[in-house]
């Protein structure tokens, strides 16, 4: 099997479509995963059982079922009685929701790592509950868990091709289509390299952040 550059050229337009979709999914998926995960983590520390309990149940459920099943469910089942979304939007929501249940565990560990004395000091100066969270607890908790959160960005990048199952063709999805139609391997190879090109700088960035933030 000889490497044929003309297949690379042919694949390029599809490749750029795929890269765009991958980056969009990654960016917005991360946004959802990071913010929703924080909501879950705080809700699970609520004093009210009727908040704590359902959130725990739902996040456990999402975490222990495959992303692929959730994508199918969001794309084919939810529209029957709820909103119908484009493949890309569905993919972003699915990816973000799925990984929010992992990031919530990361946040939880960070929050539990803040010493009890910090809560007590906040009480002693009468800070409101909201202010205690936003000014005292979260800045300390989040700083500690940024490296762990960053790992999930890389995991999400590598899991984003699952969106192809509902028709949102990321770069790997595009390559698969091209390769199967032409019986060639150049497109898949290009995409393999593209994953490294995106993931490696991201992990370097993470290590820099880790050094700067975790003291």
């Amino acid at each position, binding site marked *: 099997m000889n490497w044929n550059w003309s297949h690379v050229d042919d694949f390029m337009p599809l490749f750029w479509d795929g890269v765009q979709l991958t980056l969009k999914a990654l960016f917005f998926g991360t946004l959802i995963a990071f913010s929703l995960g924080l909501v879950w983590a705080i809700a699970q520390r609520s004093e009210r059982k009727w908040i704590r309990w359902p959130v725990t149940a739902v996040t456990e459920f999402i975490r222990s079922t495959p992303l692929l099943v959730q994508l199918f469910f969001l794309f084919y089942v939810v529209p029957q009685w709820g909103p119908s979304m484009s493949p890309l939007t569905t993919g972003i929501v699915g990816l973000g929701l799925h990984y929010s249940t992992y990031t919530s565990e990361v946040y939880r560990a960070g929050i539990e790592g803040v010493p009890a*004395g910090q809560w*007590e000091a906040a009480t*002693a100066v*009468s*800070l409101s509950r909201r202010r205690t969270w936003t000014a*005292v607890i979260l800045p300390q908790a989040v700083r500690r868990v940024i490296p762990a959160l960053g790992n999930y960005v890389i995991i999400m990048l590598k899991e984003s091709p699952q969106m192809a199952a509902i028709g949102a063709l990321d770069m790997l999805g595009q390559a698969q289509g091209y390769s199967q139609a032409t019986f060639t391997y150049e497109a898949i190879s290009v995409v393999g390299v593209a994953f490294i090109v995106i993931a490696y700088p991201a992990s370097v960035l993470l290590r820099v952040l880790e050094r700067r933030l975790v*003291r």
Partner: protein
Amino acid sequence: MSADSSTSQEIANPAVDGSELIRFDKVVKRYGSNTVLDELDFSVASGKHVTLIGPSGSGKTTILRLLMTLVKPDEGTIGVGDRYLTHEERGGRLVPAGEKHVREVRKNIGMVFQQFNLFPNMKVLRNVTEAPVSVLGLSKDEAEARARELLDLVGLGDRCDAYPSQLSGGQQQRVAIARALAMRPQVLLLDEVTSALDPELVAGVLDVLRDIAHTTDITMLCVTHEMSFARDISDQVLMFDAGRVIESGPPEQIFTEPEHERTREFLGAVL
């Protein structure tokens, strides 16, 4: 005795003779099967400096933590000023206090902890201004002016822009004192504030507290093992044992001619 059996006079005026700022009435606190405070009654008059002494596990720190609302009593009432910390009046009846009521009463109380507990994510100045701005609603300028005054008072006026981790333990504890005072509390609780410090840093912190004790009319409730400090600043010393006050009096009396055998034993061990 539960709160429900309190009489109506008590509801109207917890401070019976008008001068008692803090009043514990039959307060019980248990941790599991261990009763730390057993129907404790005691009161502190406004402006007094009271030191709680006694063996560890005798319930001294629990009293401070109850006042700071870090723990809740199992039974009894705690009065602060003309209100209760633990209860509020609703429709002529005394009911367990809601969060809002607790917050209002608690604003009169400040606390300095053994482990300082400064907010490590904030610079020194912001540690002191955070609560006055977000709780008391002071403007940033007002709060900073007041914070600088207080930091000068504790000898750290030049460290406003440092992070707590850049300070020594003694300096951190002095910032913590400034942070507590910035809320202008009527009562200052001091929980073994020098126990976590290296010996050479203790004096600086005690000097600051002595200064505050002698120049302000703030009420102080102090748990300490520094007997010379207790003798120096206290108007009254309470000797605790097994969740009860077994002896109380002015420091000269407690330290020189204690009446109770347990007090003699305890002082013999720590002095």
